[in-house]
């Protein structure tokens, strides 16, 4: 079953094309890694997938909900008639869809004034209106999974970067999303902390969670992802089985890009 699909996505910033024509889809239980050089538009792509940015043209579907259609070469979002961040922000139709996905940011973006437990629990209670006791049990379950059960009463500022990122992952999991997007979840972390996060994500992959991960860790992409999408200059240059693509890329640009990581 297809969980997510984006088609022919185009995005300009001030007349400069960032995404020219990007398409990819994610099947249930699949882990897709998005790779590409700096500035190639990976973050922009994830921001479009998670409604933090709008696309200029293209289509987007979550499960059976078509969120964006292309009409007269322009993106049309359900429930809004202008293409602007403000309209996106105010769009009530999108709120329901937001429960389908989670996003883990490069720099965590935890809420500093809340304890770890509240960070993990609150959206499930006050957005999804789920039962507080049930949510608390879930939250503790995920914190335990992240090795943080004894940190539930701490504040984010008392944690290491790696621990904060694990809280952010628990926060995403607690909402029971169908798909989780990760934007370079380890690039703000030291090498030791990086491996602890990658280990956690690997665990999630083993559980067959549907995930899309933007990463610069090629070994991780090769070993953990099912599929890799290589984006360059706003287009998908090559896409395929993770192990195949990384060990034996077909396109010249992909080869050149991967070469840099082998030096």
């Amino acid at each position, binding site marked *: 079953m297809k969980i997510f699909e984006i088609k022919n996505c185009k995005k300009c910033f001030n007349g400069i094309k960032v995404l020219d024509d990007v398409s990819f889809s994610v099947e249930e239980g699949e882990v897709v890694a998005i790779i590409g050089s700096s500035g190639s538009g990976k973050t922009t792509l994830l921001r479009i997938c998670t409604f933090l940015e709008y696309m200029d043209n293209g289509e987007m579907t979550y499960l059976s909900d078509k969120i964006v259609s292309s009409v007269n070469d322009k993106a049309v979002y359900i429930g809004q008639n202008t293409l602007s961040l403000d309209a996106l922000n105010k769009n009530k139709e999108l709120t329901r869809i*937001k429960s389908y996905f989670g996003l883990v940011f490069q720099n965590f*973006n935890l809420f500093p004034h809340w304890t770890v437990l509240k960070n993990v629990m609150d959206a499930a209670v*006050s957005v999804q209106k789920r039962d507080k006791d049930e949510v608390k049990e879930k939250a503790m379950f995920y914190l335990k999974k992240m090795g943080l059960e004894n940190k539930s009463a701490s504040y984010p500022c008392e944690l290491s970067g790696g621990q904060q990122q694990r809280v952010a992952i628990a926060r995403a999991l607690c909402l029971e999303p169908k798909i989780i997007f990760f934007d370079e979840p380890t690039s703000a972390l030291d090498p030791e902390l990086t491996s602890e996060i990658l280990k956690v994500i690997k665990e999630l992959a083993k559980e067959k969670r549907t995930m899309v991960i933007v990463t610069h860790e090629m070994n991780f992409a090769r070993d953990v992802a099912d599929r890799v999408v290589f984006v360059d200059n706003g287009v998908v240059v090559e896409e395929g089985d993770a192990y195949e693509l990384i060990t034996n890329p077909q396109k010249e640009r992909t080869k050149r890009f991967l070469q840099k990581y082998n030096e």
Partner: protein
Amino acid sequence: MINLNSIIIQVLGGAGASLLIFFSTLVISLPLGLLMAFPRMSKIKPINYIFGFVISLLRGTPLMLQLIVWYYGPYYIFGATLGLSWRVPAIIIGFSINYAAYFAEIFRSGIQSIPVGQYEAASVLGYSRTQTFFKIVFPQMLKRVIPPVTNEIITLVKDTSLAFVITYSEMFTVAKQIAAAKTTIVPLFVAGSFYYIFNYLVAFVMEKVEKAFNYYK
């Protein structure tokens, strides 16, 4: 020989009026300032400009002048004879609106200093705009505005003496009258000491408030 005790008692007699100005202004101007901060940040340009202009006017002209306008304005503009009963309301309105302008700017910069990542995380988690403000932005803003708000409150304590321009007998006016009658500056020092003591208390309370927010960075 002037009796210090009697001076203290007389000066304190004016303290009630000063405290009335102080607390009324605080209670009104803090929420009013928050309400004014929003149109000040409005994306609708005319609203943004109008509030920006009003706030700069309130901050850019002497409070003393504003008090005179509030007190005598109704008479000169509308010919309304409100008399002495209008004096206390005029003072409280004048002070509250003036301080609200300062607080509005403090709240605005406090709100704008919240990193955009907080809004983005909230958006992805599905919080509504109202929830995002009250649960995430506002509490963090409070922590950030405590130091500048403390400064304003301390200034307010001293500014209460400006009510003298419309001959309201607050503490400083009373002290000046005694000083003139008895040809001594002692009452002024007594009044000065009271302002100082009061501000010491303000600083003490605000430090406690600041500490209460220290549980996170």
